[in-house]
């Protein structure tokens, strides 16, 4: 027991915090991609930042024909946000709202943690297709 005090005093060791720095360069961010069938060219952007962030986001899809470049307006888009490296997703994302000019918006896309996220998106309507943009969320 004679060393109890020193033992208790030693239990709280000082934590060594290493210095860290942020690298602004992005990892594997993809904002311009082609659908699985190759029929669609999709440009993905977001608000409030140009790339999705931790927390609440609005995600925009600009959808065009790969062949003609024509904006496609009559599609229905639904999305599942997944984080494969941690085997979980985010709460359900409502279907996209068509804004015209080939532009679609997903509201209330919540990304709960930093890391690599996939937006597994299904396209239905006049044509059926899939597209999966990936983003590094910081």
């Amino acid at each position, binding site marked *: *027991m004679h*060393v*109890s005090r*020193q*033992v*208790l005093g*030693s*239990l*709280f*060791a*000082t*934590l*060594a*915090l*290493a*210095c*860290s*720095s*942020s*690298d602004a*360069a992005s*990892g*594997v961010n993809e904002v311009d991609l082609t659908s699985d069938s190759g029929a669609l060219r999709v440009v993905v952007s977001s608000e*409030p930042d140009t790339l999705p*962030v*931790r*927390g*609440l*986001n609005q995600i925009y899809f600009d959808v065009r024909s790969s062949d003609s470049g024509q904006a496609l307006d009559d599609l229905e888009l639904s999305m*599942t*946000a*997944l*984080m*494969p*490296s*941690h*085997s*979980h*997703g*985010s*709460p*359900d994302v409502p279907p996209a709202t068509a804004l015209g000019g080939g532009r679609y918006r997903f509201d209330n896309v*919540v990304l*709960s*943690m*930093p*890391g*690599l996220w*996939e937006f*597994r998106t299904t396209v239905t309507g006049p044509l059926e297709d899939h597209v999966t943009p*990936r983003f*590094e969320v*910081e």
Partner: protein
Amino acid sequence: MNRGPLGPAKQRASRGGYGKPTIRSVTHRHFANVLVTLAIVLCAPSARAQACCAGASAITPGRLELHEKALIGSQLRVAGSLGTFNSQGRFRSNPPGASEVDFEQDLFASVRWLRRGQLSLLFPLLLSRRSSETTGTELGGGIGDLNLGLRYDLVRNRELSYLPGIGLLGGATFPTGRAPEDAKQPLASDATGTGATQLGLGLALERSFARWLLSATALLSKRFSREVNGVESELAPQLSAVIGASYTVSDEFAVALFTTYNYEADASIDGQRVSGTGRRQLRLSLACSAELDAFRLHGNAFLDPPVDGAGQNQTASVGAVIGVVWSFL
């Protein structure tokens, strides 16, 4: 009850199993203390910074000493996020407005079965405070994933002169916590579990040299697939390795330094491997343990080095653990 430097049960254990009740016995006793600490270090779900990051935990905390038949204990863990390793292993500090602090209270118990086996149960309670620029600050928590662990000592340390101590490990984690996609809070601070069942097998080696004890543990964990938002998601098997060295300073006090490395290959979605989703984590821990009558105190400080290449798809944290174990019977 003060049982003195060597309680009667320990003296019996010393005479029966390890010869002279001298410095060697004392050393063994405190090595056991250190191993309790190691077990807890190992079992503390790694990267609880996010509940989904729970690492393989084939051992549950509170390893029994030779003379013990049962124990109960509790530990408090506090961790703060330093940033994140991305899919290419580059470290990013938290962006402005983003932070995370996690608290975990574990309750655990161990009982002996046969002469060389131990069965342990871990019950975690979690509390997280997270913030981001878009959602503000939130607080959430609840019951985490229940962990069951087995250990069987084939060969005890110094039992055979030509072999190290060899222990077989087994463990299971059950998804009793709330999966991240079921969370109600935007940043999932109320997510407390992985959502998947996990089974693990491992091997632990240990060997003492005077006051030093060297140990190495390897654990392989299988995480079962689960349905996430309509797709079948499965993490790759995880390999965890722990290498440690400990030193018995005095009758009641020992210190230890451990390195933990977790590795897993790419995850799969609907049976298809998804590139860039493997995970790596390096953790450095400085631990100590002390014996106070029937109680053992333990503590450790840990750091995930926030340097490029030290992790992948993983949060880097710094934190500390303090706990107490009460052995009885």
